[in-house]
């Protein structure tokens, strides 16, 4: 084991997959000589050359369509879209083609395609550069949507995504690239499945379900709660389509209380979808209404003082948890 950044873990996964399988290549805007807007692909152009590390025109629709076509033609593209916000220009290709071809064409073609894209707010990039749009894609059957939050998971999940025969939307977060975490030594092969969440902190009083950057905020909230005698179990979904519903139900059976913490908007999103699933499959085990911590229902404001108000934080999670854990339970 060693400690590396989320960015380096991503780069290692891409590099190892490119070394393992010559059909794997990467394309995207400014990913070659420049090394990618978030420096994820730095050095890969020098190592693999322009054929397998392709700088593309700024044209999300065609580069996404071309990645689908390349997958149909027998390759395994990893496409980097500069941010999830820009993927809206490619959403026709993602939703109308990539998600549907396998089913619509009667199981004939496979689309082994990975689309990497960072999303999220907190860096004062304003309304058009701060969205969490993973929910929108998670609505669509035929897509896999994953949101790894740690260096270990991001490396293992990217490797799984490259080897998967389906289109995988690989949602990173702009504020995660510099975080550090334990990752097995280079050359030590491991993968992380694309359909399993993970208990990141075991607890008995309440289950807090989260994903992406909010995992780290939630872990801090759990520490605060522990000081007040509330023992929180933290579940990182890691993937939001498919949903690892069994893991959630098992935890609810133990804690009987749920907080869902996400950065995205309130209505019709991942959080509300999860709440509906838990009510459907674990209603009898709930001792309190599910609490939902989410981003404000507004386009992201620019000013630091306003952006802070629009994003969910640790205190909101602590407050939500305390609202449904009776004092008598704490310290038990």
């Amino acid at each position: 084991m060693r400690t590396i950044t989320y960015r380096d873990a991503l780069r290692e996964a891409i590099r190892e997959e490119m070394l393992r399988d010559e059909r794997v290549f990467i394309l995207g805007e400014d990913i070659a000589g420049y090394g990618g807007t978030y420096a994820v692909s730095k050095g890969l152009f020098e190592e693999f050359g322009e054929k397998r590390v392709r700088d593309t025109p700024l044209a999300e629709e065609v580069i996404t369509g071309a990645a689908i076509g390349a997958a149909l033609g027998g390759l395994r593209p990893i496409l980097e879209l500069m941010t999830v916000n820009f993927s809206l220009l490619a959403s026709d290709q993602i939703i109308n083609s990539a998600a549907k071809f396998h089913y619509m064409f009667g199981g004939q073609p496979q689309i082994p395609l990975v689309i990497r894209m960072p999303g999220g707010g907190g860096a004062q990039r304003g309304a058009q550069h701060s969205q969490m749009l993973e929910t929108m894609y998670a609505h669509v059957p035929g897509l896999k949507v994953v949101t790894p939050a740690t260096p270990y998971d991001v490396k293992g999940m990217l490797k799984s995504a490259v080897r998967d025969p389906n289109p995988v939307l690989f949602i990173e977060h702009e504020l995660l690239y510099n975080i550090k975490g334990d990752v097995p030594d280079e050359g030590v092969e491991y993968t992380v499945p694309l359909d399993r969440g993970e208990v990141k902190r075991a607890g008995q009083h309440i289950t807090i379900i989260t994903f992406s950057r909010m995992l780290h905020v939630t872990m801090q909230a759990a520490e605060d709660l522990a000081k007040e005698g509330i023992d929180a179990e933290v579940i990182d979904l890691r993937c939001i389509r498919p949903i690892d519903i069994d893991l959630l139900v098992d935890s609810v059976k133990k804690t009987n209380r749920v907080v869902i913490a996400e950065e995205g908007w309130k209505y019709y999103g991942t959080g509300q979808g999860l709440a509906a699933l838990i009510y459907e499959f674990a209603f009898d085990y709930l001792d309190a209404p599910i609490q939902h911590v989410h981003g404000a229902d507004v386009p992201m404001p620019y000013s630091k003082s306003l952006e802070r108000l629009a994003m969910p934080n640790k205190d909101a999670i602590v407050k939500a948890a305390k609202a449904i854990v009776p004092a008598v339970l704490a310290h038990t």
Partner: protein
Amino acid sequence: MSQTESPKATATNKDEEQARWLAMYEQMLTIRHFEEHVNQLYMTARMPGLAHLYSGEEAIAVGVCAALRRDDYITSTHRGHGHCLAKGARVDRMFAELLGKEAGYCRGKGGSMHIADQDTGNLGANAIVGGSAGIATGAAMSIKMRGSDQVAVCFFGDGALGQGVLYEVMNMAALWKFPIIYVCENNEYNEYTHYRETTAGDLSARSAAFGVPCETVDGQDIRAVYDTAQRLVARARQGEGPAFMLCNTYRYYGHHVGDIQRAYYRSKEEEERWKTQRDPIQLLADWLVEQGMTDHTLFERIEQKVQAEVEAGEQFALNAPFPDPGEVEEDVYA
């Protein structure tokens, strides 16, 4: 012809030429009959959904696909039956797909507008106008990256010229010299509106801005289509990059089978003029007779063969079973 060719070789060439044109004649006729039957199925309420008929445009799919190999790629459109058949799809399985039967190319899950046939290099129709332009271009990218000598053809209509992605793909294909031909089937109507009301400037000038050569072809003249396609395909195969082929044509039916009152956007006289003076099947037949390559008995025989094949295919599909209920949740993921 070179001086060294023997008289026998000449005769063989002539035979080959005759066989080639007759095969194309038969294929155009198959598509025509297929579409007539589809129309009848729809009008008699035996076919659901939507169908956009290719009648009148047959020379383009057949002429272009005759210049392709089986392992070359095509992408198609909502008006795609002709492309599928020309690339080698079977009539019976096409009917089966249109009727939503298990024996269809997509096991009844695609329907008229969404047919793919991997075995013949048909990567799939896309019912989003312009939707397959990027995909065809990516398939061409895969060809180049794999070092293969295949070629990709992207069929689309005049309506797709309104989509920005058409220009994005030409930029990319020219930049990286992809082996792809963009074949525009200009049937004059963007659905229910003449293209001149929606499309500014010179259609044939568009690709030049990207350094992609354009050839304008009479899309009713299959010999012109085939000759041009052959040239552009050979060029692409040799690594000389993409081309744009503008085929002027006409669609005999409405935008789709239900579009029967067309007087508000085009006249009956206009339709008649194309059908009687510019019909691609008749034009080829006239030329074949003129060349002494055929006679009426041969035409008769082809007609009977095609009719029998289409009728048998339709019957097969009508009698074929629907998909098993369990299919509804199959193949969402590979």
